[in-house]
């Protein structure tokens, strides 16, 4: 019995940092509607800054003073990020900001590497709280007890701030209707900056507080972000008590998981989240999200049209160029083009549900990696011929998408995005922890194509035909009645329902189709590389696709393809450099700020302007 109590206390202690980070994320989302992917990076900064300050400041006062200062410092950094980057793009399409926050992640990663180096830092012990207290005979670290005592105090302080102060009232009002708050004379810009700073400071405190139990390393940002999203979603986006309950739930569950089912810790969390969302789609204490409650931001979308003759000629020329490429290009160019085509197909499949269907998935890597793993597992364990295994990639990914989609399409907006993220993490943790089947992070290797396809040239054409074919198929579907129904469901679900379209069904089919195409891309990928690792299922992989779609332009058909070519090429050139993440992050942020409609959208607008100027000139 005492053992269980000790486990429970460990869980409670772990909940402290998690709650701090999650409450910050929730607060920021509530007011600014920005899903701040960089929140994990702020947590990591908190840890590093905390370690540094604790080395400088002596004694117990120094320790707690360092924690306090760390939060303030990270708050200032957050405010800077908001002012320099995010403030410029609030009017951009919904969720476009997350691309910018991803750029921020990359920049912070490299800055942290520059400043603190690649070595992990062990957190110092809290002065005066080094030992353990015995509770019913079980040793419980003293610092754990302190954390358990601190967390409710923080919750109470935040609760007071939100419910009892003018700032809190403004924050809650802005969460509901920020335009009206502005019309009442409140400068939203500073309210947003303030909330962003506060949320960042909370993440920083989280990072510093966990130091005596952990430390600081460069993987912290991605390691925590998945868990934090889970906590925020289980608790309900924007609800502080919800975040608290969920943080405790997940941490306690984790503590017991580590003790009894060590192979399942990662899976467990996402299973709980999926279960909660199926019963309560908006989290334990969350409210229903009403999208576009107070009018659409920005101009209405112009309908997409099939290409005119010029577009067709250009596309045909590009395809002809690709087809004749092996005649004159170096082999490494072929490999690069294979990567681009695979990534373009993956991005196009995400664009299909995101742009055309309005379903923003944060977990599309599940289907890319899922397809890759499906084929690889067959080859690895049963020596299935490549042709058969390859077919299995889109098939398995499609079925997986059908199953995941069945749960996810009940939700919309951010909750949909979060649930897809959770499921993709579930798939990732299976690949990562089910070692007997997947070999964990050793990956599956020696997955080569059949003899007739082995070699750069045949595989180049194989990829080109299937990849381009897949992209064209998706394009064709967008212009078919099914595509119209999908767009109708995106723009006006009720109207579409009234016209007899079964919106959810259309969305589910589209989701499965997108999963299938992502699986096809995964299949092409695994046989071109000869191996697959859990990284292909990671959040980062999903984000890559998201970034590419947003960079290219959500509202344009070529967006995904152009974005993929852009990112793959840029990455190809930048990765030779030492601090390529920093540069890539800056490039991404620059594109986001300078081209808020994406590369294709902005180019098209420029072209339109030029054409208008041409037409007006002769008069």
């Amino acid at each position: 019995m005492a053992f269980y109590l000790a486990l429970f206390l460990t869980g409670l202690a772990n909940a402290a940092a998690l709650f701090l980070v999650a409450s910050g994320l929730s607060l920021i989302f509530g007011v600014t509607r920005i899903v701040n992917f960089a929140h994990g990076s702020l947590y990591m900064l908190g840890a590093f800054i905390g370690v540094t300050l604790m080395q400088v400041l002596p004694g117990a006062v120094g320790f707690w003073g360092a924690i306090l200062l760390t939060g303030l410092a990270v708050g200032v950094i957050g405010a800077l990020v908001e002012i320099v980057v995010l403030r410029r793009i609030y009017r951009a399409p919904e969720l476009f900001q997350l691309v910018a926050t991803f750029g921020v992640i990359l920049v912070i990663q490299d800055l942290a590497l520059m400043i603190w180096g690649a070595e992990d830092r062990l957190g110092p012990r809290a002065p005066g709280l080094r030992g353990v207290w015995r509770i019913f005979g079980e040793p419980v670290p003293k610092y754990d007890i302190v954390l358990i005592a601190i967390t409710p105090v923080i919750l109470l302080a935040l609760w007071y701030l939100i419910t009892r102060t003018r700032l809190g009232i403004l924050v809650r009002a802005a969460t509901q209707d920020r335009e009206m708050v502005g019309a009442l004379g409140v400068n939203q810009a500073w309210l947003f900056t303030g909330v962003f700073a506060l949320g960042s400071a909370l993440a920083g405190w989280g990072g510093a507080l966990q130091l005596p139990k952990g430390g600081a390393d460069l993987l912290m940002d991605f390691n925590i972000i998945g868990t934090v999203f889970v906590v925020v979603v289980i608790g309900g986006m924007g609800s502080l008590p919800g975040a608290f309950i969920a943080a405790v739930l997940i941490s306690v569950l984790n503590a017991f998981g580590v003790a009894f089912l060590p192979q399942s810790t990662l899976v467990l969390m996402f299973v709980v989240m999926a279960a909660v969302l199926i019963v309560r789609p908006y989290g334990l204490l969350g409210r229903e999200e009403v999208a576009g409650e107070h009018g659409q931001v920005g101009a209405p979308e112009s309908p997409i049209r099939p290409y005119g003759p010029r577009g067709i000629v250009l596309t045909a020329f590009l395809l002809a160029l690709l087809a004749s490429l092996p005649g004159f290009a170096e082999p490494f160019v072929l490999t690069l083009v294979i990567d681009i085509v695979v990534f373009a197909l993956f991005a196009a499949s995400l664009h299909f549900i995101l742009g055309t269907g309005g379903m923003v998935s944060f977990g599309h890597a599940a289907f890319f990696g899922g397809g890759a793993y499906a084929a690889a597992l067959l080859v690895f364990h049963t020596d299935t011929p490549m042709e058969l295994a390859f077919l299995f990639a889109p098939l398995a990914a499609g079925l997986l998408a059908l199953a995941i989609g069945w749960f996810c399409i009940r939700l919309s907006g951010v909750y949909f995005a979060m649930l897809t993220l959770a499921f993709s993490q579930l798939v990732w943790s299976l690949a990562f922890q089910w070692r007997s089947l997947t070999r964990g992070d050793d990956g599956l290797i020696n997955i080569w194509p059949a003899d007739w396809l082995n070699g750069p040239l045949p595989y180049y054409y194989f990829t080109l035909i299937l990849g381009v074919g897949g992209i064209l198929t998706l394009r064709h579907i967008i212009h078919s009645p099914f595509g119209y129904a999908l767009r109708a469901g995106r723009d006006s679900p009720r109207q579409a329902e009234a016209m007899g379209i079964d919106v959810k069904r259309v969305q589910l089919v589209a989701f499965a189709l997108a999963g299938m195409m992502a699986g096809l891309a995964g299949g092409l990928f695994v046989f071109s590389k000869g191996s697959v690792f859990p990284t292909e299922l990671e959040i980062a992989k999903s984000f890559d696709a998201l970034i590419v779609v947003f960079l290219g332009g959500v509202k344009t058909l070529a967006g995904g393809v152009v974005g993929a070519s852009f990112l793959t090429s840029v990455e190809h050139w930048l990765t030779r450099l030492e601090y390529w993440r920093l540069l890539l992050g800056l490039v991404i942020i620059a594109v986001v700020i300078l081209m808020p409609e994406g590369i294709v959208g902005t180019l098209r607008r420029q072209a339109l302007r030029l054409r208008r100027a041409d037409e007006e000139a002769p008069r």
Partner: protein
Amino acid sequence: MLEISEIHSFYGKAHILGGLSFSVARGEVVALLGRNGAGKSTTMKSVMQLLPPRSGSVTFEGHELVGLPAYRVAKAGIGYVPEDRRVFSDLTVLENLEVGRQPQREGAPHWTVEQLFELFPNLAERRHNRGKHMSGGEQQMLTIARTLMGNPALLLLDEPSEGIAPVIVEQMARSILRLKAEGLTVLISEQNLHFARAVADRAIILESGRKTFDGSFEALEKQPEIRDAYLSL
């Protein structure tokens, strides 16, 4: 006090206001009349810069408003009561009022929570209730009171009588006359001619984003063809 000249406003590509001009003098209550879609609410939003006009100018006490963010317009002394009320439904009555609170302003009546409760007694009883648990009429009073907390010199009232029980409409009319007596300048958009005549000094009729009449209610009486053509009674 408020000078609107030649403003053109758009929703996307839809041209809503086509060169609208009019002015409101200090202490006046002016009614903006017209059918659904005539551009009344768009005019309000164009003044407030929630929908900045693409061309033309809006000046308030000599200062250009076009191009300012909405909060600056509010800080300049213009209070906006939106047509769809937009009460913060999760906030209590007192908290809603707190959001609107701004420092006292010279040349404009100063309001305290207690004075507003006196003006709208229903709100006093419900001060701890959340916005979403209130009736349409109470919500309408709350939005007006919330805006008055900013101590505006000019009040933009967008269709205050819409969808409200007749008893409350009468009460609303009395409150508006009271605001006028306090020295507040009011621009009110209405479809209800009877209500407008009861509270306003002057009528402006809009049709398809253009002004078709600007004058006293007596003058309007003498031109029944305008009244019948542009107002649905």
